[in-house]
């Protein structure tokens, strides 16, 4: 992928390791299938026809490239850096998830798989999966925590409209982590015909690298758009992180540009000094779960702890392995934003820009609000607006004490 000998872009190695992270920590039943997904992916990614089809769908179906928008009102309001939004919330289905769904379903079809499973937290990945499954006429089952089904009702309805079966998971914390457990259990039981369409840069190799490669379309477009707009690279990139797919897609094409500062914003819940947050890097330690070695929220005995975030899409006690590695390497700075700060940012962005952001990028926007004012006026800051907030209006209304149902 990259010929520079010390490029950060060379990871993972052939066994799927990003430094000590990543790998393939799965039951033996899955191992042969994981190896065949890897083989199929290695062939597909070197096949021009595969990318031609991906690019065509990205353009005509997703609506790429997503615009690079100069947020003049935000810039004026904060009084410092020039703030841009990379507008992936304008994609078909309203978030960046569709990028890796198109890529993975093309691979599933290439492998001759006839059934798709996926996990979802906020429902954005579930909707995107159900969407591509409708398009490609492949039946799909979406695993979703019972708690998330309750707080993301509009997306549950969307998935069903698109023809997906939504299966509630009641075990554990009944959110994203448990949905992923259930999806893996289903996969173990249906290896012969099923493709697991993972919703973030997590899971066993090759998923973290594969999902990243599909999402890298975000960062690649940004490079070109910024060159056209400002004639140079941006100074700072900011993205929110649950599993880390939108951030990895934004950051990856810039990893070797050491002048570009990269900031990942984790969900701080009630605060990272409480036991109710989802900041795996800030508050967790290296462990093994969901097929990978990475940072996880856990107790001293290695039991995984429940994450908490106002945003269902960030409510995950782990993070993609490449982020863990970039954290150790200090290439990316990881910070956190609380529920309350995200909620304020959600409202501020709506009023300032006429853009209702999803609660996930509201975390990124909250951090932009913290730092932009202190940066010089010629500093270029780009935030990934990775999803739109329509799905979150019920959660936000409830938090604000407004009855809308």
């Amino acid at each position, binding site marked *: 992928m990259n010929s520079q000998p010390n490029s950060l872009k060379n990871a993972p190695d052939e*066994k799927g390791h990003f430094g000590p992270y990543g*790998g*393939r*920590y*799965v*039951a*033996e*039943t*899955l*191992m*042969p*299938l994981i190896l065949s997904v890897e083989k199929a992916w290695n062939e597909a990614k070197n096949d021009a026809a595969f990318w031609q089809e991906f690019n065509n769908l990205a353009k005509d179906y997703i609506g790429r490239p997503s615009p690079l928008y100069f947020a003049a009102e935000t810039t004026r309001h904060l009084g410092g850096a020039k703030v841009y939004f990379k507008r992936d919330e304008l994609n078909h289905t309203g978030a960046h998830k569709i990028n890796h769904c198109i890529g993975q379903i093309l691979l599933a079809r290439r492998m001759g798989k006839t059934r798709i499973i996926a996990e979802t937290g906020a429902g954005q990945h579930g909707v995107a999966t159900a969407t591509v499954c409708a398009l490609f006429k492949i039946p799909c089952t979406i695993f979703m925590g019972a708690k998330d089904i309750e707080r993301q009702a509009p997306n549950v309805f969307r998935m069903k409209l698109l023809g997906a079966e939504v299966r509630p998971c009641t*075990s*554990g914390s009944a959110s994203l*982590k*448990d949905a992923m*457990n259930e999806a*893996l*259990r289903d996969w*173990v*039981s249906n*290896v*012969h015909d099923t493709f697991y369409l993972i919703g973030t840069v997590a899971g066993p190799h090759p998923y973290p690298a594969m999902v990243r490669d599909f999402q890298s379309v975000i960062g690649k477009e940004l490079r070109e758009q910024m060159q056209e707009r400002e004639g140079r690279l941006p100074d700072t990139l900011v993205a929110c992180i649950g599993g880390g797919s939108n951030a990895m897609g934004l950051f990856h094409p810039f990893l070797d540009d050491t002048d570009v500062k990269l900031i990942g914003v984790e969900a701080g819940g009630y605060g990272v000094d409480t036991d109710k947050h989802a900041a795996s890097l800030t508050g967790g330690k*290296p*462990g*093994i*779960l*969901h*097929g990978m070695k990475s940072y*996880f929220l*856990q107790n*001293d*005995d*290695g*039991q*995984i702890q429940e994450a908490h975030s106002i945003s269902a899409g960030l409510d995950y006690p782990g993070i993609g392995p490449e982020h863990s590695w970039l954290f150790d390497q200090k290439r990316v700075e990881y910070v956190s934003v609380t529920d309350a700060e995200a909620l304020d940012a959600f409202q501020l962005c709506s009023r300032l820009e006429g853009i209702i952001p999803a609660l996930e990028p509201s975390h990124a926007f909250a951090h932009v609000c913290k730092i932009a004012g202190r940066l010089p006026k010629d500093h270029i800051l780009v935030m990934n607006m990775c999803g739109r907030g329509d799905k979150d209006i019920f959660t936000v209304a409830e938090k604000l004490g407004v009855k809308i149902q």
Partner: protein
Amino acid sequence: MSRIAQTFKNLKRPALITFITAGDPDAARSMEILKSLPAAGADIIELGMPFTDPMADGPVIQAAGLRALDAGATMQQTLKMVQQFREGNKTTPIVLMGYANPLLQYGNDKFCADAAKAGVDGLIIVDLPPEESADLESAAKKNGLDFIRLLTPTTRDERIPTVVNNASGFLYYVSVTGITGAAKANPDSIRPHIEQIRKHTKLPIAIGFGIKTPEDVKALAKIGDAVVVGSSIVNIIARNQDAKDLQAIVYKQVSGLSRGLVG
């Protein structure tokens, strides 16, 4: 000779391996059940180390792990159970079964040393395929613990050597493509796989997953060197967790299963 090898050598019939989760439904009663298993007919005991996210387990064993954790189970407590068991039993092998993360946090080396000292004989770690197990494997070897590997219906011929290489104690054949406690194992479809595996190894082969009744035990004992029963025992524990004679109820069930081997 390891306790596991000795057990297979002494037995003139296939072995019965029984699974329970350590600390289920609580530490004291789990200890009582554990102590009574050999007399009930268990030749080898598989003791589950509770984990919050057991992705290869069905609802029955998931629930057992959560019951144990709610009752305060820890890795240290599991080792203490084995140590207490060993004070009264020097012959029945105990194999710990679980997931990689709790071991990683304990420290692979330290865990293997403490486990060996407590009287553990082997480890089965579900989410450590040969590709990722080098570290734990060498820690186990250094401390004289058998490292038991899993083979499944999806393990193709060309992969068998990768899996059996460096395995010790016995091999665990997962008889269904799925999670614990799910579909019923079908002896006719299992036999050819076992025969294929035997071409690559002299180790005893235990068959587990989907084995529930004395009849299942009897049928699969004709194919394997050992038969593992897990979810159906754990299910009995779940259903009778409030019973005063919980241990006696489990004893009766395990006796019934073991009759499938001699009858």
